[in-house]
């Protein structure tokens, strides 16, 4: 007769499971656990090859330094919503690669002035005026740049040559002349530039500023746009000339931030404003078109050139439990040998003088333009102060909305300008 199997009650099961789990935990070498700090790293996701290079370095670094690395790729467009939720949920990463300037203003970042000064001393100083965006009025630094990028004028040199034009156009007025002459309607339009509610449309603010316009005073607190009505009108003359010249492809008033890329890559425009990401894509997918493409800094306006730069940055959230490990990661990430490898596949211009000698600037002609841009470019928002108020009006695409009022809603200039002024005053008043 078969013997009944011994009955295992729930209590028996729980007891034995606890014993096994406890034994397993105790058998794990305690010192090893204590020596393995955990580092949560939100890696900026934008350009695949560049992202992979940074991710690969981080993994190697974690292995070498016996760090338990938890890495998440965060698309740049999703970064602010995600970090917003993380801060609210008190579940922040240790290191982030976006939003340095924005989060610094909200007191969310750890002071890294020591690393800033060390890098300045070790690597021959920071490049260009735009790097100064790191230094706050009190001299402290909370975010370290690892690359500069900005919109440049990307042009079909072959079509310009066909039209008997020599690039680059020196002024914005020249750009319009070039665009009209070189375009081949209805197949190729002169200028692929958005006038929409997306941040790429902020190019219009840069152009407007090259006509001498300022939004706010030196302190970045009081709106003085109203004092520049005459300059705004000159800019609007230029804008309306562009609109009427039919150099813009249909649909630019709802373009998102990818449309200028895809339109240029499809060979449908003569000029676009974009970082060199377009060219990195062409390098891999359409070298013939890349060979016909020129890369230039912005043309000048009547009152000079405004060439603002954005940046890639690394920062440490102030809530980190491993500040020393995080700082070590930031420091090792700036090492020139590592950056040389990374910049070969990235869209960034150099931020430290030690990076100026990298081979990539010589090997790839289109990358050479990044040096010019990094040396001459100004911090984002220039000549205005980059602060929360400027950022909010910028993400709100205030200048582009004024232009849409003119060409979409057929408002008068006075009415559209009055609305822009009202929005500026409302936004800036919140931050006084």
């Amino acid at each position, binding site marked *: 007769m078969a013997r009944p199997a011994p009955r295992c009650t729930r209590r028996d099961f729980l007891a034995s499971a606890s014993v096994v789990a406890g034994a397993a935990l105790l058998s794990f070498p305690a010192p090893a656990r204590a020596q393995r700090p955990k580092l949560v790293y939100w890696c900026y996701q934008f350009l695949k090859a560049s992202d992979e290079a940074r991710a690969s370095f981080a993994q190697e670094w974690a292995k070498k330094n016996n760090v338990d690395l938890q890495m998440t790729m965060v698309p740049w467009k999703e970064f*602010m*919503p995600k*970090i*917003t939720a993380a*801060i*609210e949920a008190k579940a922040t990463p240790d290191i982030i690669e976006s939003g340095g300037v*924005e*989060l610094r203003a*909200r*007191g*969310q970042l750890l002071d890294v002035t020591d690393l800033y000064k060390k890098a300045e001393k070790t690597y021959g100083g920071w490049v260009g005026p735009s790097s100064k965006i790191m230094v706050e009025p009190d001299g402290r630094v909370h975010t370290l740049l690892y690359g500069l990028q900005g919109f440049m004028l990307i042009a079909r040199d072959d079509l310009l040559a066909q039209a008997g034009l020599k690039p680059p156009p020196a002024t914005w007025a020249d750009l319009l002349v070039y665009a009209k002459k070189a375009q081949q309607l*209805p197949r190729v339009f002169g200028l692929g530039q958005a006038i*929409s*509610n*997306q941040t790429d449309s902020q190019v219009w603010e840069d152009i407007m500023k090259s006509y001498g316009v300022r939004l706010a005073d030196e302190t970045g607190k009081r709106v003085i746009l109203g004092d520049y009505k005459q300059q705004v009108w000159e800019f609007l003359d230029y804008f309306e000339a562009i609109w009427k010249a039919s150099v813009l*492809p*249909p*649909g*630019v*008033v*709802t373009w*998102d931030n990818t449309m200028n890329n895809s*339109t240029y890559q*499809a060979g*449908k425009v003569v000029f676009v404003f974009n970082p060199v990401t377009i060219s990195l894509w062409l390098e891999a997918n359409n070298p013939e078109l890349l060979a016909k493409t020129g890369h230039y800094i912005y043309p000048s306006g009547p009152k000079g050139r405004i060439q603002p730069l954005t940046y890639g940055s690394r920062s440490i959230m102030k809530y980190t439990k491993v500040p020393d490990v995080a700082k070590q990661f930031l420091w090792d990430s700036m090492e020139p040998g590592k950056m040389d490898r990374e910049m070969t596949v990235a869209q960034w211009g150099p931020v430290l003088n030690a990076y100026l000698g990298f081979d990539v600037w010589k090997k790839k002609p289109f990358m050479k333009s990044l040096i010019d841009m990094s040396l001459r470019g100004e911090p984002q928002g220039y000549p205005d102060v980059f602060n929360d108020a400027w950022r*909010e009006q910028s*993400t*709100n695409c205030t200048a582009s*909305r004024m232009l*849409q*009022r003119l060409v*979409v*809603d057929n408002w008068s200039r006075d009415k559209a300008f009055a*609305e822009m002024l*009202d*929005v500026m005053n*409302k936004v800036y008043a*919140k931050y006084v």
Partner: protein
Amino acid sequence: MAIRHRSVAVAIPAPRAAGRLSARTREALEGMGLLTPTVLILIGLVLYPFFYAIWLAFSDKAVGSPGQFVGTRNFEYVLGWPQFSAAIVNTAVFTVSAVALKFVLGMAVALVLNQRIRGRNFFRAFLLLPWVMPAFVVYLVWRWLYDPLSGLINYALMDLGLIASPIAFLSDRDTAMTSVIVAHAWRNFPFYAISFLAGMQTISQELYDSAQVDGASRVQQFRYITLPGLYHIIGVVLLLTTIQTANAFEPVYLLTGGGPSDATMVYTMLVYVMGMVNLRLGEAAAVSTLFLPLLVGLVLAVTMLLQRKARA
């Protein structure tokens, strides 16, 4: 007749000790105990976020800052914001038009698929395709269809000689909202169709047979048999989808970003811009709170309309 009384042993409950609960009270307490987890979940997942959002609307909460009570300042700010009035009108237009279009399309398709046609089961399954596809994919496809430079719709219209130059469907104030509504309706009408179809199959065939004998036309059969038979389903579907449509975000975000200018700026897009782009959570919450009466009003209007119809 003498009645013989038999003694029966009966268990008489002992007098209730002070402090002991009656069976009824115990049962009530047990019931409450069983309900407690549900109530706690409701409080945690529904009531707390709801009241927290309302509190946010009265604070200057921004990302990373704790937020201070600011009274009605956020409400004054958003009421004076240029896109706010456009958002009210656009949300109402989008919701009413999209619900109406989905209703008509859904009803028409349900009527066709309720007939005995060849391949009926295939078409019923096929019908769900737009609804099961991720919204992201659907709206990017529609964006490409509408594209003035390489879109299929412009290509077809020009090829047929119906238009001389491409139409920027999403970029013209006159066509942008309609284009967004059409794309949204295409993705969501299958829910209406399937729900109505399910309802139609519960209506007895005898009613139609009798009506035919009495000489009722197809339209009369629809008017006096099908429609009254579907009132409850129509009510539920309209109620749910009115809320869903008013809160739709992806179509506008992916197709137009609220543009051109503010032609398609609906309230969800405004909340996104204020909260997630400008990082001003208090103002975003104020926009949501201000829209609450509009949404409640829409839902009440739909409910009352249908109840009146059902009673009639």
